[in-house]
């Protein structure tokens, strides 16, 4: 893995309603760790005019009400959080996601096996062997971008997305993997499906995953589950 370049955070603007706190331009755990920590510090600081704080791979988005926003206060919070950031991240939460691989649940498993030049079972073993970091959520409520997938099975996304991907589908797109939280269009290579709800409004925290979590996919047999995600 290449060493990520991290510089002191700078504030960039997208119009007058979004401030981007940027300090790197690579996808790496040590970069994302800083984004998650900075976002938590900003969200906890109650800066006037801030409406939403969004951690991403290598940046934090701060959505603001332009007439109430206090940029000097944000500057101070970002500097202080950056300078006092502890070296080590608190122990990550590990979330296990059961997956029925292949068959009707993983219509692209054979293609990924052909791409990797291995058996379908080997694709399953390699995907399930990973410990994936949740880098960020986006695309749909509860959709987590997980990395990084074993290079041998890192098949690029389909050139033509499917019009409907069922909720719970587990996919690969290059070195990313993820689970579709609801039925939606999508271009990722589908290798399996999980019955765990990735987003459920009945839970106090509707999204199953949060940035910084670690995910482990656990192969589970088709006998144990044939229905759709709850």
């Amino acid at each position, binding site marked *: 893995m290449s060493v990520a370049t991290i510089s002191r955070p700078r504030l*960039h*603007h*997208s*119009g*007058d*309603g*979004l401030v*981007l706190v*940027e300090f790197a*331009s*690579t*996808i790496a755990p040590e970069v994302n760790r800083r984004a998650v920590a900075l*976002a938590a510090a900003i969200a906890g600081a109650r800066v006037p005019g801030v*409406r*939403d*704080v*969004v*951690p*991403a*791979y*290598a*940046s*934090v*988005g701060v*959505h603001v009400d*332009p*007439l109430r926003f206090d940029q000097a206060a944000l500057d101070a919070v970002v500097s202080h959080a950056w300078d006092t950031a502890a070296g080590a991240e608190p122990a990550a939460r590990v979330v296990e996601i059961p997956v029925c691989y292949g068959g009707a649940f993983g219509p692209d498993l054979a293609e990924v096996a052909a791409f990797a030049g291995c058996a379908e079972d080997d694709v399953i073993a390699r995907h399930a062997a990973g410990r994936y970091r949740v880098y*960020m*959520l*986006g*695309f*749909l*409520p*509860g*959709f*987590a*971008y997980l990395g990084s997938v074993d290079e041998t099975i890192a098949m690029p996304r389909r050139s033509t997305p499917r019009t409907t991907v069922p909720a719970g589908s587990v996919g690969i797109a290059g070195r990313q993997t993820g689970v579709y*939280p*609801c039925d*939606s269009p999508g271009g990722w290579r589908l290798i399996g499906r999980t019955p765990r709800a990735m*987003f459920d*409004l009945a839970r106090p*925290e*509707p*999204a199953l995953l*949060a*940035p910084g979590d670690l995910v482990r996919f656990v192969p589970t047999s088709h006998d144990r589950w044939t229905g759709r995600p709850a």
Partner: protein
Amino acid sequence: MTARALTVLRPGLLTTVQDLGRWGHQAAGVPVAGAMDTYSLRLANGLVGNPESAAALEITLLGPTLRAEAPLVVAVAGAVFDLQVDDRPVPHGAPVALAAGSVLRFLERRAGARAYLAVAGGLETPVVLGSRATHVVSRMGGLDGRALLVGDVLPVATGATRPAGRATRSPLPLAEAPGPRRLRVLLGPQDDWFTMSSVDALLGGTFSVSSRSDRMGFRLDGPMLTTKRPGELVSEPVAFGALQVPSGGAPILLMADRQTAGGYPKIATVITADLPLAGQLAPGEAVRFAACTRAEARSALIARERDLLRALPEGGTA
């Protein structure tokens, strides 16, 4: 006593429940949604004495027909439609009393693309993560996360049954002389990714809102914009009004239902003061972009807020 409600006799083209948006959950990937033109939503709410954040109907291009199930007070702001209650014309931009059983019809559209129908008390559909806004793609909020259908019944919270305010004219220049709509932008955050001639084309060219446009974004036909280097950005959070440019070169103006983050470079971002005007664009309409400074963006927003306060009846809360 009959329940306070509106029944949908005809839904219109795309009529959804919207408010000021579902802020505070983008870290979980939840899009903000909310009104495309929050300014007109706030004006409509103010005309019926609601808080500015109350939920109302966003009506797109072709309006609905609605029946009041109890005495209600409504107001329409934003896009200008001819309006009728039981075959009598009623004014746009004014509180209107609906008797129980009366029928409100949206007829010809005269200007703008999206009208807001506020009801005194506010629409009382379920609150989801702090908002009633409909996000159709994720099927969240509003009525079952979808646009209205024939036969839907929209519950209305307790509110006035007699109109209190006066009529007003929206300060938004919707019915101005024909010609391209002018939207002011701040360049960036990735304008340095683009060739000089692309920045010139953005600010000098005329674009047209494609028919493949929706609440997530407006695809713009016009000059192609090209980057100096290939490749995508590492996905980062995106703003309402950002002009993202996929590799094909045709920009997309991100609107209310935008995703929370994206990897395409953004050449410029429409200023907050002009987002309501962007929200009033219809497919086929022409648009031009003019660069401004941060100070100009701020003065423009202050002026917009001042105009809204002036437009509201005394005691308006928006």
